[in-house]
């Protein structure tokens, strides 16, 4: 290509690097040029990505790259959704060239993270991916954004530290920095270290995958990052954490001695714990999502909850569980990107994401409303969208495995999805239009076109899940994992029975259409405005009434004891304590009196004498 004798891997790196730099430099000249350059870069990168050879090794620093089905799947998600988000960015010419620079770098790092085949390359790309997110959250630097970005970076450093520590243990015990060498050597590792390494890896990746209790950065970071980028952050970048968990849990551990650990409900205890963490994350986060006042935070908690589903699927570890979790990773990536883009459009037009200040936008932004419903259907797992097969598989896996308590939690979480998503759609699009929003227009073309782009796979994979199942089966086969192999283009057969997604979808669509018909024929409605309030039959003095405010107050009241549990408080305590110690060290030790320092020196000599006295020479 281009007459240059370059390895496609190098070419891909060059495209990302040059694309980022060019976009940054030329982005200062024209408001739209930077987005077009980003799109060109991503298109080129996608082309090269689809034509990558299997392996590539860089001599020194010795890094190893390669592509397999798993990295292909996540890579396509990253590049595809990245391109769609970049397309939506056309409507945001006000974002600075710095942002575009970091965005391209971030996608590049994510792609090479997926392609990396040794620990050093993986960690390099992981860190690059992590701090570019920090730069984008920091963005134009409001006070809240600074705080959110700081919180994010500290959490990301904690995650990275876990990962680095685990990598070092693995490299030390297996004497290899390559994944293949580690997979080959891990069975000879002392089992304590092996479990520790895998647990650390999962904990480290859980930070990015927003699994409780490593999730506290998520609502802040999502709320403060640039609105279209939040879609990418939630849709794609959290999936890289899932990718990491997959590597740690299945590629490194599941096939080896860990299986010999005690089993609960047919799953080894490690997986059982993961399933519990996943279920609790799914349940807890959706409860918190219910009481959010800001739509962005609502979706952020919803993301945490959905990522909990994925971890739950991994924890079950059966053929259906793995397929369901991977499927849900794909489906969450798609519908959450869509939902965040819709929210970005709403914020662009109205300037707020506080649900109490919104309402009635259906009249002004009908397209956004329709796609919000589409996204909501997928989120709730309604047939004909991608959310149905993915959630269905996870439920089937849970039931088939006989996980009673966690299944209850998962179902409860699913109910909560209806509650908070109903609130989301209702308070933004339905009800009375807010006075300030009388002349709001539909979102601009790049944004609504990106809705359409994302909706295509949402429906297609929802009606024809076979194609996706094919890929998951290949991934499972590649890593010697149990796979669901019994499926056709529309039907998935599991030990619990089979379902045809197309037929279910069509039936559902028919009943939906019937309901709509009834609404149009027989519906008698009375339009009320927000000041139309009365009390005990008497017309009260007009008070603005909005359902968006404390929508589920009754639920909050009932669930009060649950809401009191907060890991955030523990972290705040740790932070406070660290600050206290820090002040003691700073003011007590570096006290400014030179003579005190002379005392330290004398005491230090005495300590040294005693220390050396004690140890054997």
């Amino acid at each position: 290509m281009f007459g240059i004798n370059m390895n496609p891997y190098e070419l891909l790196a060059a495209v990302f690097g040059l694309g980022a730099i060019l976009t940054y430099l030329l982005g200062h000249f024209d408001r739209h040029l930077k987005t077009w350059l980003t799109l060109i870069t991503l298109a080129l990168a996608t082309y090269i990505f689809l034509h990558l050879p299997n392996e590539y090794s860089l001599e020194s620093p010795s890094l190893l790259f390669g592509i397999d089905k798993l990295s292909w799947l996540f890579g396509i998600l990253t590049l595809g959704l990245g391109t769609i988000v970049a397309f939506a960015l056309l409507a945001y010419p006000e974002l600075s060239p710095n942002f575009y620079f970091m965005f391209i770098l971030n996608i590049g790092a994510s792609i090479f993270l997926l392609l990396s085949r040794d620990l050093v390359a993986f960690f390099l790309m992981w860190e690059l991916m992590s701090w570019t997110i920090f730069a984008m959250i920091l963005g134009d630097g409001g006070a809240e954004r600074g705080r959110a970005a700081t919180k994010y970076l500290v959490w990301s450093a904690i995650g990275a530290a876990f990962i680095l520590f685990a990598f070092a243990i693995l490299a030390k015990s297996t004497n290899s920095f390559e994944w293949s060498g580690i997979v080959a050597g891990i069975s000879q590792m002392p089992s304590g270290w092996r479990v520790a390494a895998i647990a650390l890896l999962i904990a480290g990746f859980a930070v990015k995958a927003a699994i409780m209790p490593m999730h506290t950065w998520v609502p802040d970071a999502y709320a403060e990052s640039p609105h279209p980028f939040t879609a990418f952050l939630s849709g794609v970048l959290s999936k890289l954490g899932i990718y990491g968990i997959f590597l740690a849990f299945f590629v490194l551990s599941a096939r080896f001695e860990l299986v010999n650990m005690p089993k609960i409900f047919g799953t080894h205890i490690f997986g059982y714990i993961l399933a519990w963490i996943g279920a609790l994350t799914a349940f807890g986060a959706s409860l918190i999502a219910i009481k959010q006042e800001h739509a962005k935070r609502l979706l952020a908690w919803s993301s945490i909850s959905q990522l909990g589903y994925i971890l739950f699927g991994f924890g079950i570890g059966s053929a259906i569980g793995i397929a369901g979790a991977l499927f849900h990773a794909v489906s969450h990536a798609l519908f959450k990107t869509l939902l965040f883009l819709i929210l970005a459009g709403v914020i662009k037009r109205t300037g707020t994401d506080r649900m109490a200040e919104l309402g009635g936008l259906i009249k002004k932004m009908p397209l956004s409303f329709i796609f919000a419903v589409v996204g909501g259907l997928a989120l709730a797992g309604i047939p004909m969208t991608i959310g149905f097969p993915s959630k269905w598989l996870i439920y089937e896996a849970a039931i088939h495995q006989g996980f009673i308590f966690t299944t209850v939690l998962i179902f409860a979480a699913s109910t909560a999805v209806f509650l908070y998503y109903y609130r989301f759609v209702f308070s933004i699009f339905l009800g009375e239009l807010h006075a300030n929003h009388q002349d709001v227009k539909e979102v601009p073309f790049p944004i609504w076109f990106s809705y359409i782009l994302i909706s295509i796979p949402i429906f297609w994979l929802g009606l024809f899940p076979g194609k996706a199942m094919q890929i998951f089966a290949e991934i499972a086969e590649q890593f010697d994992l149990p796979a669901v192999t019994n499926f056709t283009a529309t039907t998935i057969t599991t030990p619990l029975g089979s379902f045809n997604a197309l037929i279910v979808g069509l039936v559902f669509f028919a009943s939906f259409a019937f309901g709509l018909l009834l609404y149009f024929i027989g519906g008698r409605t009375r339009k009320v405005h927000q000041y139309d309030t009365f009390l005990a039959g008497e017309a009260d003095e007009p008070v603005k009434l909005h359902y968006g405010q404390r929508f589920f107050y009754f639920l909050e009241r009932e669930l009060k004891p649950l809401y009191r549990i907060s890991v955030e408080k523990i972290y705040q305590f740790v932070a406070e304590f660290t600050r206290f110690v820090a002040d003691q060290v700073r003011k007590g030790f570096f006290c400014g009196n030179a003579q005190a320092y002379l005392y330290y020196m004398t005491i230090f000599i005495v300590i040294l004498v005693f220390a050396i006295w004690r140890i054997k020479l």
Partner: protein
Amino acid sequence: MNPEALGKVIFYGSSIALFLIGLYIILVKRNLIKLILGLTFIESGVNLFLVSIGYVWGRTAPILNKPELMETPSKLAVDPVPQALVLTAIVIGVAVTAMALAIAMLIYDKYGTLNISKIKELKW
């Protein structure tokens, strides 16, 4: 006790004494000038120690000004190396002391005090 051993005791003993006096001063006194004095005490103690290491009882200075010294210096003269070292160390010590006194003057100029516990503008 033979004179050689006695000499060693005196040399080492007084160097240790000098060192400890210096240490006492720098840990207890608060006046900058006294602290500097304490530092020079410690230095003198170390220098005396260094010289006494090279000293051999009954030998002469390693200056080759006599014919018998020129022939077998290693039998008649003391080890010259410590003396060279001490000369260097003394010069360095003088430089440090001068530096310290200059800074102490400056501090007195700016702060109006020589009490080290009051010179704490930079802290934390």
